[in-house]
């Protein structure tokens, strides 16, 4: 069963410390963007295109400007006229023929053509929110409807959306050895094929996006409070590319942020327009999205169509994998939209297996729908879905136990480091250990008895596996930049030991639900031997910390935490020099442990607090040493980290109604060393809940005309607590070999493994090859009818 986790008062690495930030969240004392107000602030409401594709022939603002309280209406064309640049895509993906990807023009607000329903084209600012809303309802744009491309399956055969982008293709990207893979299939004893769809998801963080933009005319300083996962990147993009303000004059603050799941990584139109408009109006401007705007204009996730083939020899050993995917990019390339279905997807298709030949081709297609970008797992859930669905199907076709077939093909512990045919080098792992533990916890041997018991109740019970791998800790900067990333992917950290011995820690990483303020404090406390309660973690403010790259891709601890370890090491080195001087010895004679600098072979020692005080009051101090006790570090990872594990789902299907009930779910994950198991379990729970949502409930649907049909909580089903069983979460440990904490990252694993496990269980229960996600009661009911 899952590990018992009680906060025992221990605070070091490995202790299940309750999250310190939760007290303010659950008592309503969080400090979210909408909690912030400025004297004289205006309120913004965006006018959004009701058409999926339409030319803007003119915008009549007269009625809006006549509304009492309305101060101004700003249009997309005005932004263009002011020299505000396009919102850039941060990752240049090349087609297999070497050509650069084709980017559509992407002004922050639509200037001449709107390309998806919900795209903003004007911004009304007013003295009150009510006046702004009334003003927005009084803006009349003269739209001329244009032909639309909505259906992903036919998008590349449809008329062009953008001049100069034939077949609506941003790129046709490929990875792997096509010829070798073809030969592997020619020699295959058995080939399993599958056509799979990965349903479009709409993120729905609990806090909608929001921003508060300010301009100080006296100094020319801009300040933008916004719901961002990476304020450092936001500032870089808004200054260097969009050219809203010079970087040194722009401060981005992401205060408490209520969930992101990827959707708040990106640089969006709204905050760009608001900070620009704040300078034009010379007044602070606040915008808070309504939930319906989140549905329309937050970047969506997933949305793939895939044909996959798996070749095997007569023993069932995988000899080749061919994958052809069409990925929906939406109307524009969002900040990382190009990389998600390519480098974060194709590279993961080896899974946990020794498949020697893999070839993947991905067509990135434009449609007149909201942009699609990273959503919890970002490419890796899609890859896992392909690999683990086809492997499970292969086992069924070969009449083999799906656990046995996987085991036979798994990379073995002694084979690491293992180079896959799709460009990654896995550093370490023990996949069978996770599989064995998961089989034990779910009581695999008892499944048939549970199935028989369910059958007596008129239910069909099924079991399904997913042995996933992911690549986290984005990423070695040189490699990422070689592959097209526009920035490096290191992280910054600074530890300031204050004169009184308390500690302020600054990280370029950003917490929006991950619990950094707790975990990072545990790391620093453990490393420096300073009381956990004396350590504060400060993040999310470009005015206070060094340039950093934020939080996504389960990178915070592996990269940001490692930066703090590096900073702590520098502090310890400096402390040794100070302590040595004061103890009249050489630094080499001083050791550091549990917060004490100790002179070897003596009873002399100094606490780190005493050393810090001495550094700020340097009366008796080394001549060649700077005063002060603060160090910073930038950490650039040497490799990705590779969390992996086994998820097993058991479901029951009610034959009469088609309702799928997730009865049991086991997640055994290898995240390397764990700093705080309570937080790790929480991350797995949340991820599995999202994966269950994708498998059974959630689906972002546009109708044939390009209108979003699932635009509210009435029509888009989110998982609720009573849809989910009590998850059984456990771990195995193979420490990451290349970062100082030996950690791998746990933020996305739950969402990566669970959809495949649940769909394998559902198809197992129903005795069918496939049913497309989400497995809603109607779809399941029809599948049963068609199968009986």
């Amino acid at each position, binding site marked *: 069963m899952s590990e018992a986790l009680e906060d025992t008062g221990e605070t070091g690495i490995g202790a299940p410390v309750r999250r310190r930030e939760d007290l303010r969240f659950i008592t309503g004392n969080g400090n979210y963007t909408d909690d912030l107000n400025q004297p004289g602030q205006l309120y913004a409401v965006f006018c959004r295109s009701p*058409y999926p594709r339409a030319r803007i022939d003119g915008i009549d603002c007269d009625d809006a400007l006549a509304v009492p309280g309305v101060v101004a209406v700003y249009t997309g064309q005005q932004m263009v006229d002011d020299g505000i640049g396009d919102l850039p895509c941060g990752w240049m993906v090349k087609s297999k023929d070497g050509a650069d990807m084709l980017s559509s023009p992407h002004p922050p607000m639509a200037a001449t053509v709107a390309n998806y329903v*919900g795209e903003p084209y004007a911004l009304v600012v007013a003295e009150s929110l009510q006046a702004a809303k009334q003003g927005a309802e009084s803006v*009349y744009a003269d739209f001329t409807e244009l032909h639309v491309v909505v259906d992903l399956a036919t998008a590349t055969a449809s008329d062009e959306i953008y001049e100069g982008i034939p077949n609506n293709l941003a790129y046709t990207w490929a990875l792997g050895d096509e010829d070798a893979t073809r030969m592997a299939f020619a020699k295959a004893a058995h080939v399993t094929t599958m056509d799979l769809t990965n349903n479009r998801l709409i993120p729905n963080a609990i806090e909608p996006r929001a921003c508060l933009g300010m301009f100080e005319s006296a100094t020319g300083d801009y300040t933008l409070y916004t719901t961002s996962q990476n304020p450092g990147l936001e500032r870089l993009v808004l200054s260097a590319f969009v050219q809203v303000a010079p970087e040194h004059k722009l401060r981005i603050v992401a205060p408490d942020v209520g969930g992101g799941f990827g959707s708040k990584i990106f640089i969006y139109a709204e905050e760009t327009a608001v900070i620009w408009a704040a300078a034009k109006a010379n007044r602070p401007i606040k915008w808070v999205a309504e939930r319906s705007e989140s549905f*329309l204009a937050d970047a969506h996730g997933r949305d793939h169509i895939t044909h996959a083939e798996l070749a095997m020899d007569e023993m069932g050993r995988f000899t080749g994998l061919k994958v052809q995917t069409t990925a929906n990019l939406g109307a524009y390339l969002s900040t990382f939209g190009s990389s998600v279905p390519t480098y974060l997807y194709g590279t993961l298709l080896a899974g946990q297996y020794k498949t020697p030949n893999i070839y993947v081709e991905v067509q990135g297609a434009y449609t007149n729908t909201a942009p699609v970008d990273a959503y919890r797992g970002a490419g890796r859930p899609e890859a896992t879905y392909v690999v683990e669905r086809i492997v499970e199907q292969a086992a069924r076709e070969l009449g083999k136990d799906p656990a046995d077939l996987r085991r036979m093909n798994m990379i073995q512990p002694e084979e690491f480091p293992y180079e896959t045919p799709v460009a990654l080098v896995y550093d370490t792992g023990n996949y069978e250990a996770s599989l064995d533990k998961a089989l034990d916890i779910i009581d695999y041997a008892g499944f048939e008895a549970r199935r028989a018991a369910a059958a007596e109740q008129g239910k069909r019970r099924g079991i399904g596996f997913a042995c996933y791998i992911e690549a986290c800790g984005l990423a070695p900067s040189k490699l990422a930049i070689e592959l097209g990333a526009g920035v490096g992917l290191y992280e910054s950290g600074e530890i300031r030991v204050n004169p009184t011995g308390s500690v302020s820690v600054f990280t370029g990483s950003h917490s929006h639900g991950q619990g950094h303020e707790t975990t990072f404090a545990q790391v620093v406390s453990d490393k420096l031997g300073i009381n956990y309660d004396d350590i504060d973690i400060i993040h999310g403010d470009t005015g206070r910390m060094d340039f950093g790259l934020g939080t996504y891709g389960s990178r915070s601890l592996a990269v940001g935490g490692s930066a703090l370890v590096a900073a702590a090491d520098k502090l310890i080195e400096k402390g040794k020099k100070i302590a040595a001087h004061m103890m009249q010895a050489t630094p080499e004679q001083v050791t550091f442990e549990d917060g004490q600098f100790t002179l070897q072979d003596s009873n002399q020692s100094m606490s780190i607090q005493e050393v810090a005080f001495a550094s700020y009051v340097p009366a008796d101090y080394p001549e060649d040493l700077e005063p002060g006790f603060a160090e910073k570090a930038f950490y650039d990872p040497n490799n990705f980290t590779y969390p992996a594990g086994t998820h097993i789902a058991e479901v029951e299907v009610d034959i009469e109604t088609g309702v799928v009930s997730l009865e049991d779910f086991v997640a055994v994950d290898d995240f390397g060393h764990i700093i705080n198991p309570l937080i790790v379990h929480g991350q797995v729970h949340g991820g599995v809940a999202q994966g269950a949502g994708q498998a059974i409930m959630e689906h972002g649907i546009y109708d044939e005309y390009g*209108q979003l*049909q699932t635009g509210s909580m009435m029509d888009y089903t989110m998982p609720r607590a009573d849809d989910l069983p009590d998850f059984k979460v456990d771990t195995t440990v193979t420490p990451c070999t290349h970062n100082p904490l030996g950690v791998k990252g746990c933020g996305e694993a739950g969402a990566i493994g669970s959809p495949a496990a649940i769909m394998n269980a559902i198809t197992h229960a129903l005795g069918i090859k496939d049913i497309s996600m989400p497995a809603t009661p109607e779809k399941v009911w029809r599948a049963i009818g068609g199968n009986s």
Partner: protein
Amino acid sequence: MEQSGEYRIAARREDVWSALNAPDVLGACIEGCQRVEKLDDEHFEVAVKAKVGPVSATFNAALELSDIEAPVSYTINGNAKGGAAGFAKGSANVHLDEDDGVTVLRYGVKANVGGKLAQVGSRLVDGAARKMADDFFAEFSKRLDPDSVAVATAATDTDAAEEREFEKSGGWLMWVVAFVGLAIAVILAF
């Protein structure tokens, strides 16, 4: 989306006709109707303030009549723009028959909606459209005969409606206005 319906109005055809010739009756029957303007015999502009679920806005509609078989049937094509609320566009076929002193009106509408109407209202538009049409005819019948109410029967396929000879009248234009009202009521609700 598609919808059809049938109303039996407890009034003689001639009385319905004359009521439809009274603009004040029509204006009063279309809740939120702010303006009806005839541009020419086939083109009209109408402004209606409408509310569907959480979405409320003033819709400015351009309407075009076609396939006019006065005074039996018309096709009305409409395109209503509601600014921030989105848009509705579609067409309505309207037939009028007489049955034993009762006037039978049948309509069929095909429409699609966009923007906020589609996003949050698509689940509600069926019911809202039905209610707007029901309200229109309830009010309309009451004005014809205070003791009667319009009886909405189950929606049927209007293709089967039998066309009958209908006495021609110089007042056909007010028919147009009447059905513009109906059509806008129905279209707006989508």
